[in-house]
């Protein structure tokens, strides 16, 4: 029984990871990890997200029909 539960839990974690990654939420985690690795102090999340979205403004991707 616990085997099934572990599997369900793992699947749920996978779905959550996928949705977050698809939405770009993991960018912040990656940034924190990079900062930690290089010993930088991270900027506040507000500033980070703003800079990230502004950088993407020129890279709008066309949507197909």
């Amino acid at each position, binding site marked *: 029984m616990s085997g099934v539960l572990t599997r369900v839990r793992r699947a749920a974690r996978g779905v959550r990871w*996928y*949705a*977050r*990654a*698809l*939405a*770009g*939420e993991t*960018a*912040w985690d990656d940034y924190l990890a990079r900062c930690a690795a290089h010993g930088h102090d991270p900027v506040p*999340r*507000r500033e*980070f*997200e*703003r800079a990230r*979205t*502004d*950088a*993407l*403004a*020129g*890279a*709008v*991707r*066309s*949507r*197909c*029909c």
Partner: protein
Amino acid sequence: MSTTPSPPGGQTSHPAAAPPARRRPSARGVAVWTAVSLVGAVAWTVLAVSRGEEVSALWILFAALASYAIAYRFYARFIATRVLRVDDGRATPAERLENGVDYEVTDRRVLFGHHFAAIAGAGPLVGPVLAAQMGYLPGTIWIVVGVIFAGAVQDMTVLFFSMRRDGKSLGQMVREEIGPVGGAAALVAVFAIMIIILAVLALIVVNALAESPWGVFSIALTVPIALFMGVYLRTIRPGRVLEATGIGVVLLLAAIIGGGYVEQLGLAESLTLSKESLVVALVVYGFVASVLPVWLLLTPRDYLSTFMKVGVIVLLAAALLLARPVLANDAITTFAREGNGPVFAGSLFPFVFITIACGALSGFHALISSGTSPKMIQKESQVRLIGYGGMLMESFVAISALIAASVIDQGVYFAMNSPAGATGGTPESAAEFLAGIGISTPPETITATAAAVEEDIVSRTGGAPTLALGIAQIFNTAFGGALTAFWYHFAIMFEALFILTAVDAGTRVGRFMLQDTVGNVWKRFGDLSWRPGTYLASAVVVGAWGWFLWTGVTDPLGGVNQLFPLFGIANQLLAAIALTLVTTLLVKHGRAKWAWVPGVALVWDLVVTMTASWQKVFSDVPALGYFAQADRYRDARDAGELLAPATTPEQMDQVVTNSTVNGFLQAAFALLVVVVVLNAAVVVARALRAGGSLPTGEAPAVPSRIVAPSGLFPTAEEKRAAAAQEAVPR
């Protein structure tokens, strides 16, 4: 541009580059693939031999899925290893040029999601619905065979070659690898085709929302919902995308339910809009949306439409399995043989292959495969999953749409999709019209269907409403409850949502293209931060598609009937440019032996598009040839007569003008493609004379340090390699 001669075979000396040794197939593998082949063979046989009896729609689903699986396992793998010779020892642009903005190493599954969201929109949903007038079989065969040998091949190979060139765009690659003449022709073609695509997409929304206060209410609310999400993500909770999207989806559902009460809210009258008012609203919306900052409207609505898209597709697949609907459509209708169908003119060949572009072969994908995706890909071998796999998934969406259109009552189908000039606009006149084309459906059936979805359904052309009806009926059977009206408006919302995203993003991309091109001669105009330039460029792009949209909705002959063929042909002419590029590149790289892989698709596509273009320009049948139609109406007008469906002399003039413009555009598109193909033929001949290869603009090989799986699921071997990489101290 750096031109380096491609190393023999384009390989690095990295050990991972060694071609995998041929292994004996495992017994389990053989058993699985034999079973898949059998399922496919049985399903295709049932579809091929069933006539006049009850056929379950699931046979179409199984035939498609089994074919996709086999194609992905064998043909896509062959293309990756033999034709393109993907090399995982070689660093991708994302690894070499990572900058955290556009070049970014992205997990293959995440990139698959992004790529799929960018390629699949309303196209694969609408084309198959219209093509259902020929019966379910021609559409099914073309969607499945087309995607395997043409559409997915195009997407994958363009992605590969763009990746080898640091993510250059289709236009840039044509200019650098084929020549300036072809490059210029490609650039003009891409821009013009984009305008037509935007106009047709907007037309579909207009047709779905006209005289529908419920639809207008819920779609209009998507704008404030997206704005709210934008502000939420910018100032209240930066970066919490899932949270904001969750709130957005709940509000969207509330907007759909709320739409059912427009009558009680006293809004019904003010939200009952004519097509003309909707055009004005859409044009204003398109302009404003394309100059607003992306975070405010475009990005949040993109989240909504992406999650809605995935959700609805999963839901539809599940509902099909639960409802197991029976096909109401014929396998092949008489319209396929005689070419006199009311939805669009022309015979099965070439017009089924034109009407279904997205889902089988869509040139527009070449713009996405050569723009953003190649800059994000992690390993070369992943082009198979992203390019080929992504397109198979879109094809599956197209198959689902074809099924949805084929399970509804066929009288209702033709009543919905024939132009108003033919049906007369009421259930009674529509039933009369149907009797005239050999379909006996009592007006009561039409009235009852309309009552169930709480909308007028006669001549609701454009495909979206028909699909919405099909989805509503399937969901109703699958999930129970008397929710047909809710599901219908849910489906309309789902389609309108990503059409609006496409209109918004497309206008913006068109604006960038215009500013970039004009910026070559007028520097200031190319500066994206110069407001007057931005406004001017946006106005030009919106004005261009707005004009076609306006002529489409006011055309007495019906906008979809007139513009959809132009759209389909334009889209596939773009595919011809992309396939020409890929074929040329294979020859330049010294792999002429494998040029048949894109070559087969290219030849077929050229035969189809050139035949269709020829017929649309030179046919003397007025329903088919644009100029023949203009002549017929001009002669009648000069003789002081009125020809149905025109009811005034002004409408006669309108038909003449529209048909003439469409005819010239059609001819111009075809000529541009011929220019590119001829230019490419010169380059191919030069390459063959030069001993079988020419230098190309391929970026030099740099060894990769990333270890990652190729496919969706890592193999045991890939897991071991990843573990070994982890163990090495860096």
